[in-house]
């Protein structure tokens, strides 16, 4: 080994089938020394972390996306293939491949091992979850398996304390002997015949080296008889969702109030500390309230991801996809789209980020396209304001509050339109291309490990904050600019926004928005509302010259009830179901799809839907005498 190689950390890559506990092993080996980035040119997460072997070697460990084979079928799997084969220009070939397998379920993993042997890189098989396998009475003859496979085989229990000690010692030995020698790869796309032969060989090795008791995991079977029951399963799924929503909305509230108060305080501090003028406005309204309006969603995002990761680690997410497949499939969506769409009720940003679980690009794009139609929590302040100002608080049908019914209707309209748009997208864009099949392994249930779940939540939080600090922040600055320039002339009496580009735009588009019942004040408020929908509430307060911003919602409501006819209020409500009123979401769509085209398409179709729906609502309402 050369001196250079000694100082450069070695590069080991983790590869394995989905549900092999690869990520848990990655977390156990690297701890919190992890970095999440993207591979160049694709929106696939690149997770890497540093570890120190007992003998003092530094190793850079890369967690590759899970795959059943190097025959890549999705962007994620392409990354795995290209990385393993050293086809990435920016990534050196790994010095060692660690193939992770679930010791209780070796069939598919061993076939992958046989395929990986052809790559010609040093290879090690890690039998993970060995603790569970032993408890179930599965007996694996390691020496035999090592001999049959011709590569080192080592056991591990990623989630147990000390469960990776053996593996660490072995990595140390391998690190000491790592060389730069490259064996030429003989891997090529396997034919069906080769795949069959490899599976037969894997089955032969299992028959020779593994003794499995005839009884399968009874707990999973018993749980599934309830959780996958055609009726009871769906009822339980709905109950889980209900609890999840309750948690997202009620648990997060105190924290959100705290963050709001914090940013308001910070804004007030900036207001007094800085001299009146442009800089003050920029810091207070551009930076602090702009970033604050995004960060306020952090508690909801954390709770949502806590639930998602818990359900994922438990093994329930694949079941949810199974239960929802037919229902979602009717609208041209994949069963797996269910999770991202659900997340979008909190905020479309984590929802769109969560579409990474969908391996088919077509399904993924459809899901991204409709995710912003799900009623996110930022719409709630707007809905609440208008509903409480315009919809009488009376009881209908003997038990339901009319205000509640309207709120429910707004949610339902979002869901129905999302299903409609995805069906239409399927018809328009992908009529000719094949419907991808729904094939998914249902892993055995496992108790989630708090450490691993918390690590996942922490990673998401970091990503969200990073995004809030870059893309979203620059959008906020742009919107602040539109609402602040040009400055009001000296001695001006009206609110400053009346003199800005935003106001000019609001007036300019008035002829167009007149048809949907919007006056120029609404148009002006919509522009800062692009920063985050609920900012529109405070902006309406500003244009109607009410001091106190969002704390003063009741007073703003009174002003609106005074200024707007009912038809306008209804039109605004309907507008908010559809309108692409969120710059951050658009920025994330651009980032996740890697193309302006999809962002523009989302913006365009949502705008068109919003205009048509508001137009219809306004005119029907006027015809019914609500104008």
């Amino acid at each position, binding site marked *: 080994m050369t001196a250079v190689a000694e100082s450069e950390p070695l590069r080991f890559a983790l590869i394995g089938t989905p549900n092999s506990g690869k990520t848990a092993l990655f977390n156990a080996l690297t701890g919190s020394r992890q970095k999440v980035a993207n591979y160049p040119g694709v929106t696939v997460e690149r997770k890497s972390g540093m570890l120190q072997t007992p003998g003092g070697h530094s190793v850079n460990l890369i967690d590759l996306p899970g795959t*059943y*084979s190097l*025959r890549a*079928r999705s962007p994620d799997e392409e990354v795995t293939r290209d990385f393993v084969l050293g086809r990435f220009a920016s990534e050196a070939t790994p010095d060692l491949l660690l193939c992770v397998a679930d010791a*209780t*379920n*070796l*069939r*598919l993993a061993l*076939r992958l091992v046989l395929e990986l042997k052809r790559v010609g890189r040093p290879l090690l098989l890690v039998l993970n979850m060995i603790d569970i396998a032993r408890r179930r009475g599965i007996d694996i003859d390691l020496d035999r398996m090592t001999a049959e496979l011709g590569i080192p085989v080592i056991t591990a229990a990623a989630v147990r304390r000390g469960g990776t000690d053996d593996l660490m010692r072995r990595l140390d030995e391998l690190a000491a002997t790592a060389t730069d020698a490259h064996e030429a790869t003989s891997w090529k796309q*396997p034919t*069906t015949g080769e*795949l*069959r032969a490899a*599976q*037969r060989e894997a*089955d032969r090795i299992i028959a020779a080296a593994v003794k*499995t008791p005839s009884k*399968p995991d009874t707990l*999973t*079977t018993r749980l*599934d*008889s309830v959780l*996958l*029951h*055609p*009726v009871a399963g*769906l009822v339980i799924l709905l109950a889980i969702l209900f609890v999840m929503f309750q948690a997202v909305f009620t648990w997060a509230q105190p924290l959100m109030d705290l963050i709001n108060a914090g940013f308001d305080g910070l804004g007030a501090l900036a207001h007094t500390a800085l001299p009146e003028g442009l800089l003050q406005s920029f810091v207070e309204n551009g930076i602090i309230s702009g970033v604050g309006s995004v960060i306020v969603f952090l508690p909801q995002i954390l709770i949502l991801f806590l639930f998602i990761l818990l359900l994922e680690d438990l093994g329930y997410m*694949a079941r949810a*996809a*199974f*239960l929802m*497949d*037919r*229902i979602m499939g009717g609208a041209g969506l994949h069963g797996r789209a269910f999770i991202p769409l659900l997340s979008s009720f909190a905020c479309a940003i984590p929802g769109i980020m969560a579409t990474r679980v969908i391996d088919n690009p077509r399904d993924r794009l459809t899901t991204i396209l409709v995710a912003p139609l799900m009623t996110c929590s930022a719409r709630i302040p707007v809905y609440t304001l208008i509903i409480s100002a315009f919809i009488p608080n009376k009881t209908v049908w003997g038990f339901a509050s009319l205000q509640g019914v309207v709120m429910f209707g707004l949610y339902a309209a979002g869901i129905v339109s999302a299903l409609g748009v995805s069906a239409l997208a399927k018809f328009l864009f992908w009529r000719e*291309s*094949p*419907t*991808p*099949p*729904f*094939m*998914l*392994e*249902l*892993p*055995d249930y496992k108790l989630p490990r708090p450490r691993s779940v918390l690590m996942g939540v922490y990673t998401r939080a970091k990503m969200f904050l990073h995004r809030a600090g870059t893309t979203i922040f620059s959008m906020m600055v742009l919107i602040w600019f539109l609402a602040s320039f040009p400055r009001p002339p000296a001695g001006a009496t009206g609110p400053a926004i009346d003199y800005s580009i935003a106001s000019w735009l609001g007036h300019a588009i008035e002829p167009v928005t007149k048809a949907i019942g919007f006056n120029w004040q609404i148009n002006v408020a919509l522009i800062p509302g692009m920063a985050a929908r609920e900012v529109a509430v405070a902006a309406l307060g500003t244009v109607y010259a009410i001091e106190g911003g969002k704390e003063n919602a009741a007073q703003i409501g009174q002003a609106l009830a005074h200024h707007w006819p009912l038809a306008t209020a209804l039109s605004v409500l309907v507008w908010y179901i559809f309108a692409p009123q969120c710059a951050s979401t658009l920025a994330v769509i651009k980032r996740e799809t890697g193309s302006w085209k999809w962002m523009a398409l989302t913006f365009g179709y949502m705008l068109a839907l919003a205009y048509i729906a508001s137009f219809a609502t306004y005119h029907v309402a006027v015809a019914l005498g609500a104008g």
Partner: protein
Amino acid sequence: MALGLAQRGFRGRITAISVSPEASDLPPDELERRLIELGFTEGAQVEVLHEGLFGRDPIAVRVDNATVAIRRREAMAILVS
């Protein structure tokens, strides 16, 4: 018989993977490879464990030691006895 027609509770062995062109929107060769990669190979033991509510689709199939969810349409390519 095709696994796609099997009722819940069916137990048997895979006799062949035989993909007709209309079996899926995927090219037959691609579907066959994906089925093999999920463990549907000749000789493997299968049991239909669960069915969905609508059209009793998709189905959850025990394949040797693993459970796989698959739509009946694609399961038509898996012949069992």
